């Protein structure tokens, strides 16, 4: 039941985000999409992912987006609106992706997958959250991807600092 509420919220506000002409409203409906997806994560016992999603996307990315929209909303005294371009191709590709995804989901017959049949309902077991498991996995099995991701972030940070510095005229 809760899942359907979150799912409908996410779909409706996602559709509104795409269809509205006002960029700022699009930004705020993105907030609702992100919140309802966080709710769905919680229903899937992924509490850490849900909170990380809030932290990174709502606290960081969304605020940056809103800042960008607000600072650039009036260029030459004209409000910036999102316009429709590439209507035909966009609809075509989106439609094809929807058809492909629905076809593969229907074909997959998820409820009869062997690992789903054997898993227990009590996913977390004795632990109170998924944090410990995630931490151990990140430091053992997935340490290389983890470190590469941190390196990527460092490079992005250095790039941002370089772009932002005043270039001395030689």
């Amino acid at each position, binding site marked *: 039941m809760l899942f359907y509420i979150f799912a409908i919220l996410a779909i409706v506000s996602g559709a509104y985000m795409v269809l509205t002409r006002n960029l*700022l409203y699009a930004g*705020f409906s993105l*907030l609702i999409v992100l919140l309802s997806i966080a709710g769905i994560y919680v229903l899937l016992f992924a*509490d*850490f992912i849900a*909170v*990380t999603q*809030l*932290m990174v996307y*709502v*606290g*960081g990315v*969304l*605020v940056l987006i*809103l*800042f960008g929209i*607000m600072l650039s909303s009036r260029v030459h005294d004209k409000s910036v609106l999102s316009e429709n371009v590439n209507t035909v191709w966009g609809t075509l590709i989106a439609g094809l992706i929807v058809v492909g995804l629905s076809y593969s989901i229907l074909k997959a017959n998820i409820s009869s997958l062997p690992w789903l049949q054997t898993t227990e309902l009590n996913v977390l077991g004795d*632990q*109170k*959250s998924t*944090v410990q498991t995630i931490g151990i996995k990140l430091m053992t099995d997935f340490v290389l991807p983890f470190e590469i991701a941190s390196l990527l972030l460092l490079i992005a940070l250095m790039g941002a600092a370089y772009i932002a510095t005043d270039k001395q005229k030689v």
Partner: protein
Amino acid sequence: MLAFVLTLVLLLSIVIVLAYAERKVAAFMQDRLGPTEAGPYGSLQSVLDVLKLLQKEDIVPAAADKSLFKLAPILIFAAVFAGFAVIPFTPDLVPAGIGIGVFYLLAIISLDVVGLLMAGWGSNNKYAMLGAMRSVAQIVSYEIPAGLAILSAVMVCQSLDFQEISYQQGALMNQFPGLEYEMNWLFGIEALGINTTTIGGITTWNIFRAPILLISFIIYFIASLAESNRAPFDIPEAESELVAGFHVEYSGFRFAVLFLAEYSMMVLVSLVAVILFLGSWNTPLPNIGPVSLAYWTTGTVGEVSSILWGGFWLLSKTFVLLFLQLQIRWTYPRLRVDQLMHLCWKVLTPIALGVVLIAGIWRLLMI
């Protein structure tokens, strides 16, 4: 549902007391009397202020973005109030004891920022817009030293659960499921060989258990002033420059909600500071030999005595921090924007990073 109502009532009464205290503290620090007319010593002043605000006309500016303007106060208050869900008030009373409470709190507070932007933009007023921009820039930057300071406490406690962190800082530690065989040592150094597990009191508070956390407590406290837009970091509301910042267009009930959200934020950050660093609901009095002061002033878990003692200690420590916030407000002048950023990025963040490193090493001494 009961927890919701209880927390709301508790919060409202704390905020009313706080608003009165603010005026009285300000008055005494400036050698004035403050409110004196309403009730004994003017103690009904803030109640009457609220009543007045509720009666006022609800003005929505004609040029404002109406839906955003109306939604913003609700979102701001909801974000702050949602943070109270994970705060343990007594040893066995916590509205929602989730395992990643600390992380959840940090994330849900960031929703507040979106509400501020909404209010600033929806007002369609240049002062409101500038105030919201400043406020958001300040909150987003100060989240980093605050987060690092919290991280060092979490590293020492090895838990993201507020209730588990609370139990670790008192004589009741071994009663928490999962901590039955844990030990507390004086200053957290096992090599000293002084076991404080059953002594409790102030010797097991986090700032005492790992003295490096005293520095991170100070960093957190400074950053939390900035996060709740309090002086000396109140440039978003700088009266002399911006009239009133992001809430300049709000009146009546909507203003009351924004005001409530701001004061709730003060209460919330003080509560978090108390829980993470100052021993949560644990008593400051240690057990000394046969005089088991800690047990006498804690009560038995699951009975009324523990609820009363726990609530008493938690709230009195919170009020001490709140008083400190008021005192700082009336002592220090406002920082400039560049000084604010200098303090955050060049002073607090490097120190906080160092503290995180030392806290990790300290944790190794503790086991």
